[in-house]
């Protein structure tokens, strides 16, 4: 039996930006566990990520991860973002400002109408607080955190939901140069430990060098090249 590719994506969507329309037509198949969508800003990378996560819909196409169809316009499949179970780390992290670090990380661990209490104890949450060195700031609010702490909180929040894959939108863009190098290494180590497929978008060459097993180059809404790992 041949395994389905980890990433099987073909998504078309017409976007309207300030009166002009923009054709997004991104397609790639890959079984790389760390794949980087690389391209200039405005190329449609974030929109692609949103379509994969289900917070935006393609006009047509299909999206499957690990052989599981998340969206397929010909078969009328459209899983909600809630059903897709993908971790999403936003460029500016989108941490809930009214919740502490611990509450943010525990957010997906309770499904009712109430947010996790401030002193919530949950083994998964505690493990991520410890793994990512966030214990000292567990009771802090996002606005009180440094850039690196925010990024790790966003990562922990996504991972605590035990996703089947991780999507990251420019996860290092908001950080200074030295911190970036360290957090890149941490992310690679983490990804290897968890064996979690990861798709990251960036316009930074250093991210590609440090993180990519495979690079998908996107320009003007289209894939212009796909490169497997050279090293």
């Amino acid at each position, binding site marked *: 039996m041949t395994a389905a590719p980890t990433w099987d994506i073909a998504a078309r969507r017409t976007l309207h930006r300030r009166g002009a329309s923009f054709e997004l037509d991104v397609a790639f198949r890959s079984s790389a566990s760390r794949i980087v969508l690389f391209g200039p800003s405005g190329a449609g990378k974030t929109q692609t990520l949103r379509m994969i996560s289900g917070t935006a819909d393609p006009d047509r196409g299909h999206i499957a991860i690990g052989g599981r169809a998340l969206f397929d316009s010909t078969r009328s499949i459209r899983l*909600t973002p809630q059903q897709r179970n993908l971790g*999403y780390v936003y460029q500016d992290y*989108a941490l*809930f*400002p009214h919740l502490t670090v611990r509450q943010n990380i525990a*957010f997906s661990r309770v*499904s009712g109408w109430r947010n996790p209490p401030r002193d919530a104890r949950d083994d998964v949450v505690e493990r991520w607080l410890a793994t990512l060195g966030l214990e000292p700031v567990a009771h802090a609010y996002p606005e009180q955190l440094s850039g690196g702490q925010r990024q790790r909180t966003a990562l922990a*929040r996504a991972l605590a*939901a035990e996703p089947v894959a991780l999507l990251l939108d420019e996860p290092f863009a908001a950080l200074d140069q030295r911190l970036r190098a360290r957090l890149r290494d941490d992310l690679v180590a983490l990804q290897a430990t968890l064996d979690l497929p990861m798709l990251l978008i960036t316009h930074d060459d250093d991210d590609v060098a440090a993180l990519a097993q495979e690079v998908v180059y996107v320009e003007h809404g289209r894939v212009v090249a796909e490169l497997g790992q050279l090293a």
Partner: protein
Amino acid sequence: MDAAWVALKLTLKVAGWATLINLVAGVALGHAFSRRRFPGRDLLDAIFTLPMVMPPTVLGYYLLVLIGSRGPLGAWLLDHFGIRLVFTWQAAVLAAAIVSFPLVFKAARAAFESVDPQYEDAARTLGIGEFALFVRVSLPLAWRGILAGLLLAFARSLGEFGATLMVAGSIAGKTQTLSIAVYEAVQAGQDDTANFLVALTSIVCIAVLLAAGRLVPGRVAGRA
């Protein structure tokens, strides 16, 4: 002066119920308008804002046509439940709710629009259902603006006169709110009563505004 206290109690009851109705209706519709596009949205938005600019007597007249015993809603209520709404305190609640509705609707809509949709998307990717994320993310982040609108609506309901008079009349102890009692007292030349009622109304309004000032900047999203 017992009558004045009765009028005050009635006024607070009417304004309280009207605000409660607007809490549910204004927040639900304000959220829908901030996040969804649908045909007729602009027209509906204009209609929902109308009570802010239309004379209350005109609103009262519309309401009277609707809930009067020959009106479509009034006739239905009378036939099926034997309820006569006109000239009851419940009619006064309806009048106050309609007149003050745009204040909650507009405030709630603006408050929800100021919440970055990315927070809601983040909650979705974390597996949280639509209603739960509304309660856990959207509402806490918009709460401050909604509360400001609710307090304004409460204050506006306290002073409601025109529409209330049209549909609820001025029955002492039953539908005669403070503002209507003031008018009646002046018309009847009862200066003492009028003076007391005016002083009482002013104190209540100042108290509401002070409470508003205390409540609104207090709970800021993101801080303990």
